């Protein structure tokens, strides 16, 4: 299980691939489900040029660990990888990667989705967007 808050841009598919090669026993898993969320250059009808991601240091790490442990247990996962960006982002940069490895696809899918929804609704991150008219805090997440 690897959980990390990243201050710099990360390459999600390469991280996933490396984590799998290094930590999963070959032939042990039948499915890996992954979701990557990344920064769009457009939101709520306006072009977005920059984004700042703030978090509650200490609380957020603890939440991410708890939701990953919960999923590991509930879905009998073989492993979880969870990366979340903070700081200044440019459009197209990855924000979050959630990946779950399991014996079968249903557990991998459900775990990946549950972790993502739990993160979106509970984890203490906040986004501020830069648009032509200035800066604005994102008010709420898109429903899952």
């Amino acid at each position, binding site marked *: 299980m690897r959980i990390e808050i990243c201050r710099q841009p990360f390459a999600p598919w390469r991280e996933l691939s490396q984590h799998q090669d290094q930590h999963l026993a070959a032939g042990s898993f039948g499915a890996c489900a992954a979701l990557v969320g990344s920064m769009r250059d457009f939101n709520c009808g306006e072009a977005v040029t920059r984004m700042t991601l703030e978090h509650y240091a200490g609380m957020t790490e603890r939440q991410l660990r708890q939701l990953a442990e919960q999923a590991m247990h509930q879905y009998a996962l073989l492993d979880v990888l969870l990366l979340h960006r903070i700081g200044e982002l440019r459009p197209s940069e990855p924000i*979050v990667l959630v990946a779950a490895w399991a014996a079968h696809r249903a557990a991998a899918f459900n775990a990946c989705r549950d972790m993502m929804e739990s993160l979106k609704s509970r984890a*203490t991150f906040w986004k501020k967007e830069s648009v032509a008219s200035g800066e604005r805090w994102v008010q709420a997440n898109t429903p899952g």
Partner: protein
Amino acid sequence: MSVHVKYFASLRQQLGVESVELAHRRDMTVADVWQAVSRQPPPCNLLCACNLQYTDFKQAVADGDEVAFFPPVTGG
């Protein structure tokens, strides 16, 4: 008793302050902490945590606790 108070995101920006050390004598709830240190009524969607866990405003706080106030989260 002493309580560490933190604000995040739009709330931090509105209040113009990131953290406050509150010294107080009597027993307090999270709601009392808000009233004692913030200069406005609580926004309707205000969230709070005590010692890194979500809590509600009726929760009693103890000496040394960290109490945080913030708007709805928007990560992921």
